[in-house]
């Protein structure tokens, strides 16, 4: 932890900025693409506090990735696939019921913490408490989202705090991909 900043320092010294672009989500095809309700379950996700988290209050987050491959690999972590060797994913038929959704996003206030050492270091932690504390502090400063490193090592994730969205911000589904085999193949080849 030497040289790492305190979560309160990170938030206090960060300046919110606008962000726009296209992101991806991988979810079950029966679920709405912009449904963030599942993030309140249990302890919550890596960057939001669920109902059972020590971090209060709980708040919803829509998890997205800049790269489609990252969105896919983030989700298969639920199945225990956390190896840096992405060839593991080739054998997966576990994601057959899933869809990749591309989303157009325009936000007014996000914190860009893609290079934040504390968040990078936290990716290997079993506990999400610190990452959730940082995310909660951003949520409490009315940020609409945070850009954070992806546990997959591929680019970054945009975590959207759906309850903080400004009236002028925009989130819209642009397309959905049901046949994930080409993306799985590209992940296996190391192509993004």
């Amino acid at each position, binding site marked *: 932890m030497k040289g790492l900043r305190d979560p309160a320092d990170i938030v206090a010294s960060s300046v919110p900025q606008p962000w726009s672009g296209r992101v991806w989500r991988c979810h*079950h095809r029966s679920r709405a693409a912009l*449904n963030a309700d*599942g*993030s309140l379950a249990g302890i919550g996700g890596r960057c939001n506090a669920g109902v059972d988290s020590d971090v209060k209050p709980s708040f919803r987050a829509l998890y997205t990735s800049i790269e489609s491959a990252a969105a896919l690999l983030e989700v298969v972590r639920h199945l225990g696939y956390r190896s840096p060797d992405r060839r593991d994913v080739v054998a997966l038929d576990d994601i057959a019921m899933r869809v990749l959704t591309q989303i157009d996003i325009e936000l007014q206030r996000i914190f860009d913490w893609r290079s934040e050492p504390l968040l990078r270091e936290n990716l290997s932690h079993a*506990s999400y408490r610190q990452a959730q504390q940082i995310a909660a502090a951003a949520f409490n400063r009315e940020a609409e989202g945070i850009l954070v490193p992806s546990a997959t090592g591929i680019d970054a994730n945009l975590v959207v705090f759906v309850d903080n969205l400004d009236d002028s911000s925009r989130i819209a589904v642009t397309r959905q991909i049901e046949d994930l085999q080409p993306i799985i193949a590209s992940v296996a080849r190391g192509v993004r």
Partner: protein
Amino acid sequence: MSVTVQERATNEEIALDRELAATFTSDDASKRWLKTANPILNGDAPIDCLKRREYDRVRAALEAFNTGVYI
């Protein structure tokens, strides 16, 4: 007519089985998810929660998986 604890547990298990079948296309995948330690469950594996009859927790973790929550 009241429902016994055993009947309620059986009904919960049947409902969860249906949700697992709707989520995964193979038993292997379903078993893998059930046996994997899940941060959303504070590090417990869903199978351990089932042994304690914590059906709501398991359903919540499954919903987090289905809605694409990152762990």
